[in-house]
């Protein structure tokens, strides 16, 4: 009973659910605020994403005439639920360890792909040509970034697993324990190719500017989200806020978990998350232009794949 209670708390309160939602929205607000400051503007208040969500809750939901209504309205729900589960799967070093029954890194990898799939379904069920374009772009991009991230995770799993005498381990808790004992992978030259590949992967997964091709506002008018109104759109905003927390904290867990515990570990994790958001997301999205989908596809099949393969090879040779 207490195990189930623990899982429920992890999914709905901390670190998933309400906490992750608030954190994700604040990170989004921070992102917009800092972006505005870098551009010489004042920018919206930090609470702006909360206001947006409340506003969206007051709006009317409209379903396009030719849309498939159950799929159209169900897609964002699936996305939010998957992200709630995903947040509960990522451990916080020294603060929170997910129950092994929830799943391991492989399950997390699968769940991480659900938002992209949900966007594809949303785009295709909305009966809008822009949604269809967004669908095809999202699919192309997903095919491109899928292989590198799998190889990166494989490299990390091999590094930890081989040190423990197995072939690989997919438990994030063990990966963090290994890094706490032997130093973080951020400072380990053997893992740098994997780190570089991950750094190229996460802007694509989060859909920020060099790779926000499926939702490009100036090209395809937010693509799959074009036809969504009111609460349904709000669910997508919730999904993307949760996803930012998941992907960023996965990056922290894979490469730079802090060797702290308790309150300090939690605060340090928050600091890492914020820094990653500012330097990895805000600065990147402001300093680049958007790639074309074919450029992005070619790019992902070239550099991140190369780096990820190299990382697997170096890890295999080094240990």
């Amino acid at each position: 009973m207490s195990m189930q209670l623990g899982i429920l708390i992890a999914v709905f309160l901390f670190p998933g659910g309400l906490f992750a939602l608030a954190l994700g929205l604040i990170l989004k607000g921070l992102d917009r605020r800092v972006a505005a400051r870098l551009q010489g503007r004042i920018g919206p208040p930090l609470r702006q994403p909360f206001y947006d969500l409340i506003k969206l809750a007051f709006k009317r939901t409209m379903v396009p005439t030719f849309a498939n209504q159950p799929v159209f309205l169900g897609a964002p729900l699936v996305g939010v639920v998957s992200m709630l589960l995903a947040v509960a799967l990522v451990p916080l070093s020294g603060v929170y360890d997910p129950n092994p029954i929830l799943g391991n890194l492989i399950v997390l990898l699968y769940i991480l792909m659900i938002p992209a799939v949900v966007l594809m379904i949303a785009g295709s069920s909305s009966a809008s040509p822009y949604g269809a374009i967004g669908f095809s772009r999202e699919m192309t991009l997903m095919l491109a970034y899928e292989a590198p991230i799998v190889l990166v995770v494989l490299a990390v799993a091999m590094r930890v697993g081989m040190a423990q005498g197995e072939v690989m381990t997919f438990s994030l808790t063990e990966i963090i324990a290994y890094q706490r004992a032997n130093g973080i992978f951020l400072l380990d030259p053997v893992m740098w190719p994997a780190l570089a590949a991950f750094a190229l992967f996460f802007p694509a997964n989060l859909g920020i500017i060099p790779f926000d091709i499926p939702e490009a506002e100036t090209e395809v008018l937010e693509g799959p989200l074009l036809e969504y109104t009111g609460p349904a759109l709000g669910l997508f905003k919730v999904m993307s806020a949760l996803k930012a927390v998941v992907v960023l904290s996965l990056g922290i867990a894979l490469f730079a978990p802090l060797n702290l515990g308790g309150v300090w570990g939690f605060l340090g994790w928050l600091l890492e998350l914020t820094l990653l958001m500012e330097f990895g997301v805000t600065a990147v999205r402001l300093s680049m232009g958007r790639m074309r989908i074919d450029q992005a596809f070619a790019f992902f099949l070239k550099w991140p794949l190369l780096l990820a393969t190299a990382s697997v090879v170096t890890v295999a040779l080094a240990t």
Partner: protein
Amino acid sequence: MNFLSLFARNLIEGPYTDPFPFKPAPTAKRFRGKIAFDPVTCEACRQCERVCPAGAIRFTRTKDGLEFDCWHDSCVFCGNCEFHCPTGAIHQTVDWHLAHGQADKFSAVEHGLIPFKVCPSCGGKALDSAPATAGITPALSAEEAGELRALCPKCRAKFIKARRTRT
């Protein structure tokens, strides 16, 4: 890497944003804003009505006199009326606070009335408009101008003719 120095500069110097909705916005001295009309100096030549490209200016003769109306919702702020006005009775202010609700759409009007008067010389009814003083040499003195203003157009012509023969 130019953008990095740009980012740094923006962070250090702070935002450029005007504090507009919370504080008054800076407005240029020669900003072409809302039209203002002064019925006292108007000659009633109706040149502004003729040159207005948007047809925003309209003169109507009513029982009270000559009414001037400029509808701000049609005015394009080109400044033609001010340019062509011989006396500067119509001019553009720097006021740009023109946003208004739909209920006020047809009351967003600059209104002026040039009333009728009785000519002290002939006793006829005439518009109390400013006399055309351009080209009169030597220039009118203040008393002469006041006297001229009080007259009706016909008596004004007589007045000026008499003055010309006098000098």
